[in-house]
Every structure is written in C-alpha cells, then in structure tokens.
C-alpha cells in the first residue's frame, strides 16, 4: 500500500519545478573543466572584493582579536596588562574540571545531533507524503525555529519549576512525582542536562527536517518507479535508493548541526544556570562563566580558541571520514 502512495507523491514533488536528473551534469561541468589563472583572478577582483572585505571583517578580524586576547593578561576591569604567552591556555587545561567538561560537550553534540537527524528523517518522510493539510503541517514544523531559542527554553524551564511549573504539576497529578511541590528537574546537573538535550533536539528539528525534505524532493520519481518495477519493498527502496540520494542533504544537515549544537549557549545557560559547580557545563557555558562570572576575558578567549580548534578538527574528521561531498 505504502509504495503506491510513494509513487503518487514523488511526481508532485518533482512537478513543483525541482531540478530533475538534468540538473546534476550541469553542475559538474562548471567546477571541473578549467582552472582560473592569476589574470582571471585580477579581472574578478573588483567583483569579489566586497565579499572578501566582508569576510575579513566579520570572520578573520574577530578571530584574530580572540587569539590576540588569549595571549594577554587582561585585568578584571578590562585593562590590558601586557602579553603572557600561553599562560591562559595552561590555566584552561589545568582547570580540574576541564576534561569532564570536554567529555560532556562531546556527549551533548553527539546525542543531540544523532537524535535530531533520526527524528528529522522520519518527520521529513511524513511531510513528503501527499495528505490533506500538508502545507499547514509543514508550516507548523517551522514554528519552533521561528520562536527564539531563549523563549522556547524559558517555557520549558518554567514548566519544570517546582511549585508552579505546569510540567511538574502534571507529573505530580499523574503520580509520577510524589513530592507535592514537584521534582527539581533543573536543580540537579544530570536531569537539567537531559532536559537541555530534549530542548536542543526540539529547536534543531525544523532546520534539519527541511534540509532533508529538500533532499527528498530531489529524488527523481523515475528512480523510485524503477525500484518498484524491480520488486523492491518500501524498506529496501528506502535504504537502497532514497537514503543514498539524501547524502548531500544529510551532510549539510549534520555539519551545520554539529557546529550549531557545539556552539549552543542559551539552552544550557537557562536550564543549568543556577546549578552550582561545574557538573552540567559544556565548553560554551564554561567560556560564559569565565567571562561573566570571573571576568577573565583572557582565559575565556583562550578557551574560545580551544573550542574553535575542536570544531575545526571535528569537521575535518567528519569531512575526511564520511566524504559527504562525494557524489553518489
């Protein structure tokens, strides 16, 4: 049964004007044929110069300042007291909670991205089917993305508050929590961290789902039809035909999510902000604590540089191992 709906739905997707098989060879010929020389570069410079200036201004300059600050001794009130070499990095690595924090950061990224991608694959598959009201459902899926992350997190945070949070009250009412004021979900490192993961997945879903949905709509209908003719069942078709075609969409979704989730501050900041000690911190909240609580701009910069390096390494390993940009 489901195969018939599938074949029905894909032509609709393709008929929306999505590029079919013709789009791909065109793209390939554009990149491979001719290497632009220095002359071409000089000709192109006036056109790309604004973009280069912009990139230098908004990417390289702040990164440079961050690195510069990480090698200075900056007083509590923000006065630069001179260079100290790599002392700030030593302080970062000697901090007794650094390695647990790094481990937690990795758990945070892996769990959030993995669950988000799996859920998004399912959601995108559903949204790709033709059913009455599909446009409205697609719109609804976007809403968590349209609301600010802090707002969404605040709603969950207050819902979890003992005494007056509705989630807590609900859990008390159905008998899952036996203290009348509710359980302090956001007051204990482990539960606060777990709830943060839930929120992070929730706010990551829209982007990931739409990226995968866009990928799904580029799967040509005739390929699915051919698979059906060859007698492949829905599961076989999905894993043998559809999923490989989603490779580039998934690659984009995973990469952007890794960077985004790694750098995510607001969710953890709100959910775990009042917890004492460092048992629910990731690298990002630790940077924030150095900056906001201890006013150590210099050490915060050093940790930022470390975080920057970690993201680059993760992305490099991912690109190298998964080869996401390789064509199917």
């Amino acid at each position: 049964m489901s195969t018939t709906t599938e074949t029905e739905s894909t032509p609709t997707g393709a008929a929306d004007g999505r590029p079919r098989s013709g789009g791909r060879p065109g793209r390939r010929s554009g990149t491979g044929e001719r290497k632009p020389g220095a002359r071409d570069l000089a000709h192109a410079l006036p056109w790309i110069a604004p973009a280069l200036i912009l990139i230098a201004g908004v990417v390289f300059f702040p990164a440079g300042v961050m690195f510069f600050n990480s090698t200075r001794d900056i007083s509590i009130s923000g006065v630069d007291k001179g260079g100290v070499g790599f002392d700030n990095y030593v302080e970062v690595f000697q901090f007794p909670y650094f390695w647990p924090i790094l481990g937690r950061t990795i758990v945070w990224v892996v769990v959030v991205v993995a669950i988000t991608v799996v859920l998004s694959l399912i959601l995108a598959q559903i949204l790709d089917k033709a059913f009455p009201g599909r446009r409205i459902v697609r719109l609804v899926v976007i809403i968590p993305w349209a609301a600010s992350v802090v707002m969404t997190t605040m709603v969950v945070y207050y819902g979890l508050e003992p005494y007056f949070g509705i989630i807590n009250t609900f859990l008390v009412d159905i008998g899952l929590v036996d203290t009348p004021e509710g359980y302090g979900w956001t007051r204990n490192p482990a539960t606060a961290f777990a709830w943060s993961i839930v929120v992070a997945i929730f706010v990551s879903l829209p982007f990931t789902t739409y990226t995968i949905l866009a990928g799904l709509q580029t799967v040509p209908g005739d390929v699915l039809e051919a698979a059906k003719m060859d007698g492949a069942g829905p599961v076989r078709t999905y894993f043998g035909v559809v999923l490989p075609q989603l490779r580039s969409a998934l690659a984009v979704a995973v990469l952007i999510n890794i960077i985004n989730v790694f750098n995510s501050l607001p969710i953890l900041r709100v959910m775990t902000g009042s917890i004492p000690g460092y048992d629910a911190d990731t690298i990002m909240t630790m940077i924030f604590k150095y900056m906001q609580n201890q006013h150590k701009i210099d050490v915060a910069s050093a940790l930022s540089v470390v975080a920057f390096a970690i993201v680059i390494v993760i992305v490099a390993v991912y690109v190298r191992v998964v080869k996401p940009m390789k064509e199917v």
Partner: protein
Amino acid sequence: MKKSMRFGAAIALAATASLTLASCGFGGSSGGGESGGDGTTLDLLVPSYSDNTQALWEDVVDGFESENPDITVNLEVQSWDNLESVIATKIQGDEAPDIYNGGPFAGFAADELLYPVEDVVSADTLSDFQESFLANAEVDGTAYALPFIASGRALFVNNALLEQAGVAAPPTTWDELLDAATKVSALGGGIAGYGMPLGSEEAQAEAAVWLWGGGGTFGDESAITVDDPSNLPGAEQIKAMIDAGATQADPGSTDRSPLMDIFIQGQIGMQVGLPPTVGQIEEGNPDLDYSIVPIPTQDGSPFTLGVMDQLMAFQNDGDKQEAITAFFDYFYSSDVYVPWVQAEGFLPVTKSGAEALGGEEALAPFLDVLPDAQFYPSTNPQWSAADSAFKALFGQIQTKPAQDVLTEIQAQVDAS
C-alpha cells in the same frame, strides 16, 4: 519583481524613519538642541533597580540640567545582569563613563581609573555621609567611591504558618530556627520551613548570613579568608538545616528571586529578605500575614548583612572634574536624594537622608538592624573573584562536605 522592489522601498523607509525617530529620542533625553556650545557632557551609566529607575534618573538629570545649563548629561540604564560586562567593554574601548553606579569598585581603583571622592564632591556633601558607609569605600585610607544606597537584611516570617506548626515566637538563634523550620516543613503539602537560596543568583548573600552569623568573616581589604575555621560553624549549620529537611528541596541551585515569590505566595515559613521585599509583598499578596525580625544567629546576637552600592567617577580626560562635582552635590542634596531612595525602597546613606526617612514604618526594622551591619570586603580587589566563586560553587554544600566547599572557593579566589 515590481512587488519586491516596493517591499524593499517600504523597508528602507521604515528603517530611515526609525533611525530618525531614534535620533530624536536621543536629542530629547539630553535635554535640548544647544549641544553645539562649549558645554561639558557627562556620561552616566547606571543599573536598573526597578521599573522606576529610568524615570527617576531622568528627573534627576532634567533638574540638574536646568540648574547647570552648560552641562549635558547622557544617561544610560543597563540591567544588573549586563552592567559589569558593559562597563568592562567600555573601559577596554577607552569609553568609560564619567559617573558609574555599581557595586565592586576596588578593581577600578587598583587600575587607577577612579577619582578619589574628595576631588569630586564638596566638603559639605562629604561630611553628610554616614561615616561607617564611607569607611567601607576606602582603599588605603582614601575613599574611591561614594555610598549610594544601602540595604540591610532581615528575616521575613510567615506568621500563619508558624502558628499552624505550633511555633510560639519567631526564632532568634540557630537552634530555634532549626526547630521552627523543621516543624513548619512537617506541615507537608509542599510547604518549606526555611527558604534557602544558594543558587548562582546571590549565593554570597545567603552564605554571608550564615557564615558571619556564626562569627565568620570573608576577610578584609588585604586578604580574602573564606577557608577559615571561623566560617565552618555556619557552613555546618547550613548542612544541618538541609539534612533535617528544614529547607525547600535543592537549596544549592535555588535562586533568590523566584524563591521569594514562593514565600510571597505563602508556601515558605521563613526567608531572609530586603527592604524592597516589603513592596513586593504589597503588590503580589497584600493579605500575607508576615512580620520582619532580625536574622537569627548562632548565639542570638544581633547582626545583619549590609549591602551598599556606590557611585564612582572615572578619570577620563581630567577636564570634567568640576562638572562631576556639580552633579554629585546636586544629587546628594536631600531634596533630590531622599525621594530617589524612597521611591526605590532602599535605605539612605546620608545623615540628612536618614533623618528625613526616620519615620518610615516599613523601613524601621531595617534601620534598627543597620548599626550591626557587616559588609562584604568590597574594598579588596579580589572580592569580585570571591563573589563569583561563591555564586559558582557555594551551592555544592548541599552535597559536598562543608570544608571542601570552603577550600574550593578559596582556591578559585587565590588563582585569580
């Protein structure tokens, strides 16, 4: 295509309009168009104490500018959460405000950024400050900040809950407090005996209430002494309260403001509060049957945690000293200062102010305890490191041994 262009034009128009309006707004607040003259401009950076703060300061600025037409004051109001990062950013960018209202100032004084107060207020104004407050702003015998407002702490007691639990009188010692709070907690139904906020919002205050109440100290202007045997009885008493179930659940990560709301709702027997709490109760739950009593201590001796915020003047170009002096003299004159303090619900730091507000009934319990006030060692440049270490670490006392927590805080202070 045409449609999108029209849309673009609309956005451009809206942007221009809002920019123009915004610049009008700035023109208005700085009080008039004759800014081209050779007048002095003072930048004033203040935190927001309540929703009234901005309007109160605008009144002060308007009054000052009409008396001193050649001086323009630029007012900037920030939230407490942002204040310290805003001032740090401004200093780093060489744009420190001329006058700044904040808490810790010893770091600025150590970096030689501030005027000694003698240079920026007249002798008359200086002599009007309560000596103990002024002394608390001194580094090596020189005061670098002017006391601005003060507040003391006292114990807010929910009379109805105590009566229900069979407690005859509000507690005055730790033993009585533990006993009373345990009885109130035993009422059940989500009611907590003692509200103990050790979360990051203001852990240092609750810590001070207990540690100092047992004879402890956080140190003085030369040394921060958190890991000190005199602090241990208070820390152990906190653990005793938690272990006896006399507090709300998870005190280690409960913030003060939300917990105070729960007290106001009538779910907590006792909690330490501030003068503005009186106004909050009036607004949130005027029917609450409560009383304000001194904070219980180990042996029942009177004590309160005094908190004082300061006004300080940054030495920017050095040519604004006279204007700053004029501003401070105007602000601290009792016609201007007293209404300001009164509207915000704090305690005055000037003698004339204390006289004017002496009859205020709501402030009476706090004015009573103020002579026994102890302050944070805020003249020590390391105090702000200690402050943040308390906020970040002290709540762990819920699960870790008291001594370990004190040691860890001291270690973080020493490392800064």
